[in-house]
């Protein structure tokens, strides 16, 4: 932590528009650059778990970003799949954050992050079966009631599959969306990572997604560990993921997309370049649909 001096005056000229095209994940090391240069980025996604402490300098910085950009919220702490009661303090803090910054939507993951008093701060997979489906349905409905808005849920990357899983992941998600009326954040990189880690065809998975309910796509880079792909968010988006993205966007040009990068963070311009590439592909997906060898 290095305390930084920030100006107290707020930006007053807003250019906030609807969430469209490709945005970038807002990361603390880039804040100063963003505030100083006001880069040409369609929108930002805020990692809510880093901003749950109300007011203070962090909120003031986000205020200044929000003055110029549209914003969505993305979290990892709801633990929707956990069998433990929902964390009301977490939801209250998130509610405060939403009230202050008015995001276009709030997303979290189809996963659990704690059991008992143990918090793992990592996205752990649930089995895809009827019990988990019903459990997640009730949890999402509770969260939507608590926050007073629809929730957006994201498919996670995973490294194992349970024997108790009886429903294909894409069908599980589709049914969950149908039962809760929530929306989907489709992480195309996660689909590709899982297809390699679990040996399924990514295109079959993507063919079963109800695109009318997809409000956002995530793109990120994985780390090839030889025996498996690690969803590390530490790299450029890879060619096979771009290929899948182009195939999705061929029929869904207007799904907002986000470049996610968390580790080994490069200069902001690198993320901007990735966003530009995503915009180019989204507007002309056929330009890279040269083969189907993903």
């Amino acid at each position, binding site marked *: *932590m290095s*305390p*930084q*001096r*920030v100006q*107290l005056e707020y930006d007053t000229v807003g250019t906030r528009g609807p969430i469209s095209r490709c945005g970038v994940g807002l990361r603390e090391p880039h804040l100063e650059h963003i505030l100083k240069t006001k880069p040409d980025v369609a929108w930002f996604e805020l990692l809510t*778990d*880093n901003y*749950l*402490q*109300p*007011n*203070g*300098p*962090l909120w*003031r910085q986000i205020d200044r970003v929000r003055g110029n950009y549209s914003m969505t919220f993305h979290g990892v*702490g709801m*633990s929707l*799949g*956990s*069998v433990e009661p929902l*964390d009301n*303090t*977490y939801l209250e*803090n998130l509610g405060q954050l939403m009230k202050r910054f008015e995001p276009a939507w709030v997303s979290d993951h189809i996963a*659990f*992050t*704690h*059991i008992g*008093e*143990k*918090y*793992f*701060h*990592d996205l*752990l997979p*649930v*089995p895809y079966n009827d*019990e*988990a489906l019903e*459990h997640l349905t009730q949890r999402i409905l509770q969260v939507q009631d608590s926050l007073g808005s629809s929730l957006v849920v994201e498919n996670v990357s995973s*490294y*194992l*599959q*349970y*024997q*108790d*899983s009886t429903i294909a992941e894409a069908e599980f998600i589709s049914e969950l969306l149908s039962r809760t009326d929530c929306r989907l954040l489709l992480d195309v990189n996660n689909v590709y990572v899982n297809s390699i*880690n*679990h*040996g399924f065809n990514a295109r079959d998975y993507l063919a079963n997604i109800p695109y009318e309910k997809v409000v956002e796509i995530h793109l990120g880079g994985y780390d090839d560990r030889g*025996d*498996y792909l*690690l969803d590390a968010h530490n790299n450029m988006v890879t060619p096979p993921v771009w290929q899948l993205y182009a195939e999705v966007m061929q029929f869904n040009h207007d799904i907002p997309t986000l470049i996610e990068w968390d580790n080994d963070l490069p200069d902001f311009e690198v993320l901007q370049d990735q966003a530009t590439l995503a915009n180019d592909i989204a507007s002309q997906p056929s330009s890279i649909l040269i083969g189907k060898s993903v």
Partner: protein
Amino acid sequence: MNLHQCEKIFTDALRPGASEEVFSNACSMLVQQGSLPPQQRLLIYRHNISGGFINALSATFVVCRQVLGQACFSTMARDYAWNRVHQSGDLNELGRDFPDYLQAEIDIRIEFVDVAYLADLARLEWFIEQSAQADDSGSVNMIGVNMVEHSETAGLYPVMNPSLRLLATDYPVLEIWQAHRQPGGVSHIQGLDERAYLCVCRDRYDDVIIKLISKELFSFMSAMVEGASLEHLVSIAASEAPQIIHYAMQQEWLQGFKN
């Protein structure tokens, strides 16, 4: 197997040092896939979780990590986080008990004899982070110090700057912290001749300021932080109370008083 059992068996196996029985129980509920056996798949999660813990604590305890070295710090951070009693879904709270954990380790491990100051250094780093992020939305119905009548002092209580933190230490942790944050490395660390008192607080420009203060001021400030009434504060500092209160206001450590 129900969902609760599934999550429990899975997460029990993630803990470092889980018994072979616990680990193999978890493996038996996983699908055998490709060339990567279930054991390896579980270890990916264990490693990811430990990495997340270490990264979070490294971001807060920057100087402690430099003092211990990455390998030693990572081991301690991992052991602390996995075994921590008080848990929270807020990752920013992960480091709250880390200084106490370091203190307990220092007390029992001979190899830490040269870094006996480490727990206090960690406390300072934790306070700096807490101070930097503290809520400053302000208190309602506050009475400015110039509005206070002597006759009212019994029912008035101080409203402190929410970012204020106080630390008393037997070690020169401020010097150690500064030395590690400046280019040119660390000079030889000597013990203090007497106890040092530090005040950590964020100023109006959002800079966190650390001040070395006197024992008397520290005692007075501690009483204020603990919620002593103005009447009590006046009684412990006698004729110097107005001067100390004025100084604390000037430094923005004290914001005013409330009923």
